[in-house]
């Protein structure tokens, strides 16, 4: 039968969700980290971001977590959802069990509860890897810019979709062991600027930035980054590509 003529099934009662949230405030070190359980009724299309706001509004105003855009663009609400890094605003509760454990991203400085300071680490990495256009030629603002092939612009844009949420670093086994590792976010940025014709750095220059064990050769290809990236960036391909390019320099 055509399904539109069927009587809509009476909607089942909403699930009761239990969220175990790791509570810890570094400003109060005398209080040990604990998991606090909150229960709420699941709503249609509920994301973890909505659930957390509901808890903060109605149950515990002291709960700390970050968000800005609610649409997977700002990268603020990354956290461990049942142990796996993910964006709270892009995680639907219907894809999870009714019992959910939330913890802050490891590796980064903890601000409190689910809130971490990814920004400071990201900035340090950007400075260390010099992730901006390096041009020697002077740009004349009176002339028309050199055109860029649409395919190239697309390819650069694809890598520029990174939102620096920190999920790849939190999912990286190498970074957990060796905190000086630049991680997928850093390598992806190098790949992005390497692609950009306005950046006049050579592979020689990039080798100086990532040609050692805290750079591309430190990557052990565990691919946690690739598998958790909320923007589905093809990090495996980018890192393998950089590895081939940088390894080549070992023999010239």
């Amino acid at each position: 039968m055509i399904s539109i003529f069927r009587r809509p099934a009476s909607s089942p009662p909403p699930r009761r969700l239990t969220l175990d949230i790791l509570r810890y405030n570094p400003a109060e070190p005398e209080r040990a980290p604990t998991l606090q359980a909150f229960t709420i009724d699941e709503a249609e299309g509920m994301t973890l971001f909505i659930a957390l706001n509901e808890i903060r509004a109605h149950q515990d105003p002291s709960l700390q977590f970050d968000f800005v855009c609610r649409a997977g663009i700002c990268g603020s609400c990354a956290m461990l959802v049942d142990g796996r890094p993910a964006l709270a605003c892009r995680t639907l509760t219907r894809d999870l069990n009714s019992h959910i454990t939330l913890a802050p991203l490891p590796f980064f400085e903890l601000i409190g509860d689910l809130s971490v300071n990814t920004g400071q680490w990201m900035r340090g990495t950007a400075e260390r890897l010099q992730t901006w256009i390096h041009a020697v030629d002077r740009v004349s603002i009176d002339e028309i810019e050199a055109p860029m092939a649409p395919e190239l612009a697309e390819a650069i844009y694809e890598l520029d979709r990174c939102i620096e949420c920190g999920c790849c670093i939190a999912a990286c086994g190498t970074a957990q062991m060796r905190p000086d590792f630049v991680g997928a976010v850093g390598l992806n940025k190098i790949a992005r600027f390497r692609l950009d014709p306005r950046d006049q750095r050579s592979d020689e220059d990039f080798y100086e930035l990532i040609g050692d064990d805290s750079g591309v050769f430190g990557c052990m290809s565990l691919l946690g980054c690739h598998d958790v990236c909320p923007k589905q960036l093809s990090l495996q391909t980018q890192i393998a590509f950089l590895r081939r390019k940088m390894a080549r320099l070992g023999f010239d």
Partner: protein
Amino acid sequence: MSHSIDYTAPQPLRPSLPPDAAALPTAHPPSSVRPSRWPARLDLLQSLSGLLLALFLIAHMAFVSTILISPQAFYTVARFFEGAWLLGRPYPVLVSLVAASIMALLMLHAWLAMRKFPAGFRQYRAFIAHKNRLQHGDTSLWWLQVWTGFLLFFLASIHLYDMLSQPELIGPYASADRVWSGGLWPLYLLLLFSVELHGGIGLYRLAVKWGLFGGKTRARLHLARHAFSAFFITLGLVTLLAYIDLGREHAPRAGERYQPPSTSASHHH
């Protein structure tokens, strides 16, 4: 209701390079401060030594498993590597040379791969906590690779030294006696599982690390990895059983060498 969760304490922030150090226009640095090329070479060498060992592993299993065809088939293969067909008479030292090269390759690979092992308690604990928290296939596989690799330092060395020091004792009866009467079958059993798992995971990781088959082939590579390990562990087990069988049968005459039927009359000593 309380649930345990592995929580790693926040890391202290690292100092980063001052931005002004980087803002200079990018001319090539003078060659005296050129960054070392060794990280690149060592990385490639680690992969290459692993690949060569894996290829040797495949060939080795093909030769050893000829015992499943017949003792005569294995005898022919063993004598082939002593070079009598080329040099007029058998030189077991050729086998020693191969064993020594593989030993050297193994040491090189172990030295290079060891750099990736967790160093010290902090790294060790950090990785275990991460692995248990993430529940991610490729991350857990690496742990298996670390431990099988660690076991291979010892298991493979014992076997290689055996081949290096007694190259003439390779043959249907000599090998079967070593396995059974010599009591080495537990070593071979452990070695078989370690090396086939380690080799299978290693080949898979080579492919994803260097992007050998493009970016979207991971599921198929995993399938190939399973097939590799399953095939060679099965073949290895059947082969080991054949040697155990032959060794038990031959135990009363342990030490006596195999004589090929055609030449047994003329070459008897």
